[in-house]
């Protein structure tokens, strides 16, 4: 028995080699460089000088940048709450469908999910543009007399974010609710629980891992999706993502962009850590 095992171990090492090399050279390497870069000094005209400094991190604490972080977190919280409100009931109800309808609903979900995010974003421009579909509908219903001009406002960005991220919540909650044994809910009802009590003590508890995973899958990306804030928010909504992009592409202040990225990464890691503590799981539910 010992011999074939060793043989497969050798083959295994050979097979895993490309992954090892790629992970070390093209994932870990760049990440280490980013951290190093965040401690370097910006050169006068272009590029960086390898002179150690903490200035980039000190800069983050300037009120204007702190405010950007705060705004990003606020937007992420608001978007995530909206995504929960839409996605949790959806994923939960979907798990109660018959197998045939589950399949159909999944397909109907996959089509917009697989459609380019830019196409969907463009749709929202058409809806929110001054005198666009949204304004026309509201005015036709006499809810408002004037066009609301929703494009380039905060609510437009929230809606765009929620729309882009809701499928992740739905998939996460669904994969958790699908494993839920609904006879447990019935048992609780038979034993005298109200529908709300039964939901709270049985269904909600058992779908909590999916919900938490959905929160992570929504919250984390929503701080970096700069193009949604860019296109639906004009220059009114500046997120950490926008700030990093601006520092890289326009201000050419790479060390500061690196320090901002490290700070964002730290924030992300903290969220993932909290998730692990809360759920006790190591993998995100419904990620793939």
């Amino acid at each position, binding site marked *: 028995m010992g011999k074939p095992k060793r043989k*497969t171990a050798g083959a295994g090492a050979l097979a*895993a080699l490309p992954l090892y090399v790629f992970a070390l050279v093209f994932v870990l390497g*760049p990440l280490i460089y980013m951290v190093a870069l965040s401690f370097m000094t910006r050169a006068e005209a272009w590029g960086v000088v390898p002179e150690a400094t903490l200035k980039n991190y000190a800069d983050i604490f300037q009120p204007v940048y702190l405010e950007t972080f705060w705004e990003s977190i606020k937007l992420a919280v608001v978007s995530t709450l909206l995504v929960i409100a839409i996605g949790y009931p959806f994923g939960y109800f979907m798990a109660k469908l018959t197998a045939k309808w589950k399949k159909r609903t999944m397909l109907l979900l996959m089509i917009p999910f697989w459609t380019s995010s830019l196409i969907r974003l463009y749709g929202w421009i*058409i809806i929110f543009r001054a005198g666009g579909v949204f304004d026309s509908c509201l005015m036709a219903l006499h809810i408002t007399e004037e066009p609301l001009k929703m494009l380039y406002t905060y609510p437009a960005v929230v809606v765009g974010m929620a729309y882009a991220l809701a499928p992740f919540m739905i998939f996460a909650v669904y994969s958790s609710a699908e494993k839920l044994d609904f006879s447990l809910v019935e048992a609780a009802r038979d034993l005298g629980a109200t529908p709300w009590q039964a939901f709270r003590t049985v269904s909600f508890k058992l779908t909590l891992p999916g919900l938490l995973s959905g929160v992570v899958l929504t919250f984390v990306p929503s701080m970096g999706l700069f*193009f949604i804030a860019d296109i639906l928010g004009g220059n009114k909504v500046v997120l950490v993502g926008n700030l990093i992009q601006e520092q890289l592409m326009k201000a050419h202040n790479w060390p500061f962009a690196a320090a901002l*990225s490290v700070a964002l990464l730290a924030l992300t890691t903290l969220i993932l850590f909290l998730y692990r503590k809360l759920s006790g799981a190591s993998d995100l539910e419904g990620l*793939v």
Partner: protein
Amino acid sequence: MKNRTKLPNIYLGVILALMYVPILLVIVYSFNESKISSVWGGFSLKWYEELFRDKALFQALGNSVFLGLASAFNAGVIGTLGAYGMTKLHLRSKGLIEYISTLPIMIPEIILGMVFMAFFSLVGIPFGMGTLVLAHTAFCIPYVFMLVKARLVGMDPSLAEAALDLGASPRQVFCGITLPLVSPAIFSGMLLAFAMSIDDVIISVFVTGVNTSTLPVKIYTQLKTGVTPKVNALCTLLFLATLALCGLAAFLGRAPKPPGGKGRG
């Protein structure tokens, strides 16, 4: 009792319908004669004609398709071999490498974009298709790796052991037994990787070269600077392609699955 079961279904239907509204609007306005999309100027196909005359957009489409195929292929090879190798290895570094290689889908894309841009200019790789493929491969690998790993974990190890006992070489076992059993997972992973690659804006914006603009990057710039219904026409065609791909995936999903696997693919 009947009524209570209806309400959730209505909710599902309404949300699903709302998800399609933005997409349908883009399609409807691609047939709009008027250039201003808030005005309906009658049915017209002229934006499709203009679209087919736009060589730059088609070049961008070509770039995107090539990039998606190349990255999905790379990820398929590296991810599958990696997932297989990892099950055979008993090194201490295994968990760490697994963690590092799945990082690209855990951390915000904007950081990945910044990191690659800085790294490639440090190492001196000229920005272009090469950097795009490298960066996209990095975030495509986790999709294949995780799906294949899940499938391998659910696989009955006695199959491979039996083949080894009967004198098959590890390579024969891998090609003759393991690979066919995990192929649905590889396929789903690569399809997902392709979809993620062809839709990516954030990372591409940072690592693209002057002449290698991908389609999402091009559409993004147009959405920012002012957009003509030509983009609607393009989006409509892309949506049809998506529909075809989804149909294909659904069709293949119906094919009988080989026994032994419990993968979620």
